[in-house]
């Protein structure tokens, strides 16, 4: 098994009397990892602790095999970070900013400049790169943040809400890019997002944080397998016939306001439904297996934390 990209032991962070992170012990293997939790759950704090932007109150952590406290600089040597908030150096133009970030990671000027242009091309930024970064829209700032995080060719990319402020096509573009980093280039990505569908689409592993604790950490496949299967059908015609046949076969069918039919089942695949459609000569339909699976998992994972908070 490959060495973990992140390994923490009893990691904790308190601000005065408020406990933001509590006894976090995880070992995250390489890949694309989704990190999510409710607002204030401790996701951003945990990322900041891993980057030493916040000093952990308790515990230890290793990033790419380097202890974050004893090897402060080395632990960030091959890490790229795209923070959630607008972080840029005022007065710089886009390409100057990305070049500067490359140099801050130790790249010589010429190579940093060349790579800055490559990264700005990569994130889909055109002539705007010659404009002052102070004048950028939110979407352009997101692209610049991603470019500066990639410029020094990191082995681990940590992104906090990377699709905030992007329009639909921009979001699609950036998600494809992030998704390909691990698959095609072996760059691990930890992505913190409140947009569960983004995480579900590109991540092969999920870590859920609630109340400063890790409440779920597993591969996406395992998590989905643990969750009761749900299939949604959008019949092109003969909706009534679908209701009739499914009811007769003993399935609980929920009729949704968007015209879809929602069926809970204990079967892992949708093969049974295809057979049913063939046997009863039902009209074609659009099938969606496990829609909102992550949403369900998320809410399910939060339940114990919520109960704990209430008690």
């Amino acid at each position: 098994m490959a060495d973990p990209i992140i390994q923490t032991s009893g990691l904790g962070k308190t601000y005065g009397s408020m406990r933001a992170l509590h006894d976090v012990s995880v070992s995250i293997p390489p890949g694309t990892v989704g990190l999510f939790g409710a607002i204030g759950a401790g996701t951003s704090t945990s990322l900041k602790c891993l980057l030493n932007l916040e000093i952990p109150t308790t515990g230890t952590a290793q990033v790419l095999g380097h202890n974050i406290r004893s090897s402060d600089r080395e632990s960030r040597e091959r890490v790229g970070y795209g923070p959630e908030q607008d972080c840029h150096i005022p007065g710089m133009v886009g390409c100057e900013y990305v070049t500067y970030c490359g140099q801050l990671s130790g790249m010589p000027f010429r190579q940093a400049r060349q790579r800055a242009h490559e990264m700005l091309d990569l994130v889909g930024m055109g002539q705007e790169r010659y404009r002052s970064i102070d004048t950028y829209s939110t979407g352009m700032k997101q692209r610049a943040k991603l470019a500066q995080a990639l410029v020094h060719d990191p082995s681990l990319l940590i992104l906090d809400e990377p699709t905030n402020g992007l329009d639909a096509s921009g979001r699609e573009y950036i998600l494809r890019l992030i998704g390909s980093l691990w698959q095609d280039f072996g760059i691990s990505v930890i992505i913190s997002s409140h947009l569960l569908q983004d995480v579900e689409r590109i991540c092969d592993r999920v870590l859920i944080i609630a109340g400063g604790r890790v409440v779920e950490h597993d591969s996406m496949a395992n998590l989905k397998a643990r969750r009761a299967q749900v299939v949604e059908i959008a019949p092109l015609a003969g909706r009534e016939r679908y209701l009739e046949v499914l009811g007769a076969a003993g399935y609980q069918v929920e009729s949704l306001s968007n015209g879809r039919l929602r069926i809970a089942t204990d079967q892992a695949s949708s093969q049974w439904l295809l057979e049913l459609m063939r046997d009863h000569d039902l009209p074609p339909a659009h099938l969606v297996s496990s829609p909102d699976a992550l949403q369900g998992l998320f809410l399910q994972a939060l339940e114990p934390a919520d109960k704990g908070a209430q008690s």
Partner: protein
Amino acid sequence: MKPQAIDYERWNGTRRGVAYRSWIITQAGLRQLLRYKFFRVLMFLGWVGAFAIAAFGFILSQTLAEGGLLAELAAKGGPRAEALMQAVSAILLIYPDLLITGAFKAIFWLHSNLGMLLGLAAMALRVPQLVTRDRSSQALTIYLSHPITARDYLIGQLGIIVGVLLLLWTGPLVGGWLFAMALAPDTLFITYSLTALGVALTFNGIALVVIGALAFGVSAVAKTAARARMAWIGLWIVMGAIAGHGRALPEWIRNLSFVSDLHLIRDEVFAMKDTLMDAAGVVPILSAQLADNLNNAADQIEVVDMTGVYVTLSIMVVTALVLARGRIKPE
């Protein structure tokens, strides 16, 4: 469609060390500063000062040296002028430390007024852009998420202050001296002006530490650029005015003005009182009136107990650095 994946290439170059990363911060800060017209004007004035030092050195050496331009002109001006020049040259041979070292000390002392003024004015421009701006714009998060520590960042920012003072003060001082020495007709001028240069550079170093630390402290504490600038101007001009005009005030209050403290330290480092009194002891050979004037000037230099000055200034510098170090973390 995966256009991104096609264009991405891994980079396996050699990464440069920590000193390079701090230097990059310094370089970027100075480059940003050079974009300001006001700073370029300050630089121009600083190098006018260098020209003044060079011109002074040139005139002094040509006046005093035996083979100088003035001696050649005096030779053409008749026996009386020639005799006067020979007397001046003789005094130079007997008292080179007094004439050369003393004269250069005086010009460097005057130049320190200009250098310090320009340095303080440049800091009024730069102070809001040190820690204040990086904190308010969240740029500190970007800096510290890269493989640099808060100390590396601090060194880089201190480099900007050193760079500013080098461009406006130390550079013109050394440049002007070098130019003057290049035109001097005798190596005696180099030998004896080096002492004065050493004294000037010592004070320059002290001022650099004090101005740098306080600029950092102000920049770290202030939340906005406007407040940082106001605080700097307050410390510099308002406190300076209080110290300068409030003779009735207790000494410790006057010591709170770092500009006043630096002026007192300068007088001590340059030892101008001793230089003037030594000169007054020798000059009667040429002019009793001049000796009286030198004695009067020496009397006007205030003698104060420097312990309070050093203690207050040290406390201010250490406090400023501790404050700055504590604030270098993301908001």
